[in-house]
């Protein structure tokens, strides 16, 4: 009987997450759909795009939008729609790749800094401060000129620099965990450092890692677009949305406004969807936002109502 009662509660974490997402976060759901669409476009770009992204039709240069070129053609007669479709793939490569490196770097730097503390932490913090004291874009431009342009370069640079920025989140989470009683207890019974880190620290910072990941994807995509726009990101002929807005878009922006509009629209929708998705993931997973009263509260009356109910339910 106990089991039967408990059953609806043992929905797997992921299903529970999805149900809550749809129920509580309509904007996050919209974001999730945009993310899925973007993934679909990126994976099946080869089938969806009418032309290869670098195929030149010199006779149709600056062809206005029409039946053959749905969103027009650029100054070399390349199909804008195809370039935008392949651009989704490139953006996701950069966004996902750089964010994955963000998480890894944040953990590699943040866990020891928070766990060991003391002099080690102070020294690490000086390096981090030095790095963070540069206005992000200025530093990125300098580093990108140093390592040279290219897709892999952009991913690694955004990944490492962003990861060091995020390490503060991991560090403070680790410090908070270290002060918990269960951690003290584990240490008191003589748990080894790998066990402490693996069994007590890592599971508890997982939500933060997921948050870091989902919140940094959009930022990384935007950063790549900005770098490419400034000419230090992804070189031609790759169809980066930022690069499309840069040279081609701005040189012919008065004669062929479609060159300047559509890559920006694609970028805007993509970043909007991913940000909303990231926000929702954060809202649902952040331990600090768990429980309490009034998660569903829309007005003070409801807050007051919920309050008494939840209070009554909790022993």
């Amino acid at each position, binding site marked *: 009987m106990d089991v039967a009662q408990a059953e609806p509660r043992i929905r797997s974490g992921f299903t529970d997450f999805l149900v809550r997402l749809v129920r509580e976060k309509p904007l996050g759901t919209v974001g999730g759909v945009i993310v899925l669409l973007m993934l679909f476009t990126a994976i099946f770009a080869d089938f969806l795009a009418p032309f290869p992204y670098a195929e030149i039709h010199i006779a149709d240069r600056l062809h206005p939008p029409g039946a053959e070129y749905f969103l027009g053609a650029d100054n070399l007669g390349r199909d804008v729609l195809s370039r935008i479709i392949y651009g989704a793939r490139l953006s996701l490569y950069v966004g996902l790749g750089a964010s994955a490196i963000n998480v890894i770097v944040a953990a590699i730097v943040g866990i020891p800094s928070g766990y060991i503390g003391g002099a080690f932490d102070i020294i690490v913090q*000086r390096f981090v401060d030095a790095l963070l004291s540069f206005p992000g874009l200025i530093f990125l431009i300098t580093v990108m000129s140093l390592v040279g342009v290219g897709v892999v370069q952009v991913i690694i640079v955004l990944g490492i620099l962003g990861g060091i920025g995020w390490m503060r989140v991991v560090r403070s989470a680790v410090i908070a965990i270290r002060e918990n009683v269960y951690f003290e207890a584990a240490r008191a019974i003589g748990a080894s450092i790998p066990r402490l880190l693996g069994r007590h620290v890592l599971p508890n910072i997982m939500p933060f890692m997921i948050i870091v990941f989902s919140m940094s994807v959009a930022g990384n995509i935007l950063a790549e677009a900005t770098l490419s726009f400034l000419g230090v990101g992804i070189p031609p002929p790759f169809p980066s949305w930022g690069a499309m807005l840069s040279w081609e878009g701005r040189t012919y922006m008065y004669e062929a406004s479609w060159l300047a509009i559509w890559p920006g629209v694609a970028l805007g929708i993509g970043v909007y969807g991913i940000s909303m998705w990231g926000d929702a993931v954060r809202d649902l997973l952040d331990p600090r936002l768990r429980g309490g009263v009034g998660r569903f509260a829309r007005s003070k009356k409801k807050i007051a109502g919920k309050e008494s109910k939840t209070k009554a339910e909790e022993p």
Partner: protein
Amino acid sequence: MRVDNMHTYIIRRLLLMIPTMFLVSIAVFFMIRFIPGSIVELMAFRMVQAQTGSEMTAVTPEYIRHSLGLDVPMHVQYGRWVADIFTHGDFGTSLWKNKPVTQEIIARIPITFELGLLAFIIALLVALPVGIISAIRQDSWLDYVGRSFAIIGLAAPSFWLGTMVMVFPSVWWGWSPSVELIPFFEDPLGNLVQFLIPATILGMSMSAATMRMLRTTLLEVLRQDYIRTAWSKGLSERIVVMRHAMKNAMIPVITIIFGQAFVMIGGAVVIEQIFNLPGMGRLFIDAVFERDYPYVSGINFILASVGLLMILANDLCYAYLDPRVRYR
């Protein structure tokens, strides 16, 4: 007791800035000088180009390196550079323009500063009301509209919005933003109008982060016991939110606001590029592409110093506002 603690904390933080400044100076000095395609190669190339057809004079890389003073060992150059900054605030001589860079950098600061300040004001004017409303009316249509609006400001990249603002008004109404800078002291109104569009675009992208942070922390704070107490005392919503909740919710938001200052400087680089505003950002980009090392190092150093002071100011605000922060 508290004041003593605060003093020790400030002194400690100031002392800790010294090693950080040292690292910063090393980074800004060496990074740009290791960029492939040095100024020597660039200059040699331009000189050969300039001489084609006329009688060639021998321009060797060694000669250029010597005339630019780049033939002494790197660490000696670094030592001189740092010494000049700390003894007479001199950031060196431009390699292309052959004149001191310090004056020009300082002359460009007000433009970037004005752009940033306006953007900052606009960002806060958008972020604070939207953040508060979307937190106290969580999951209502007001929340969704406000957040969508703010996120669109973030998602639509500033360089794209800037391009759109340049193109469409000129195509439709034949109006386009001024290409020449209107100095503030000659025509204050014209100057403000000129800065308003770029500042709005920049401000919109800044407001999103502040607004999201404010919303999240306010949601957290609104769930705490003392807010429940405030409600149960029968206080009005305005008092509960503005007096009780906002005070605590603003603490982490201040970090974001300070952090946004960095985003703002970076964004200013792009915006200045699009709207032809001769600020520090444009100077910086041009100098990177021209490999004019003293400009790049100088601007980087100044901005990083400002950045360090921001981090410090932020931590001090935090320690002052939040008694729970331990002075470690």
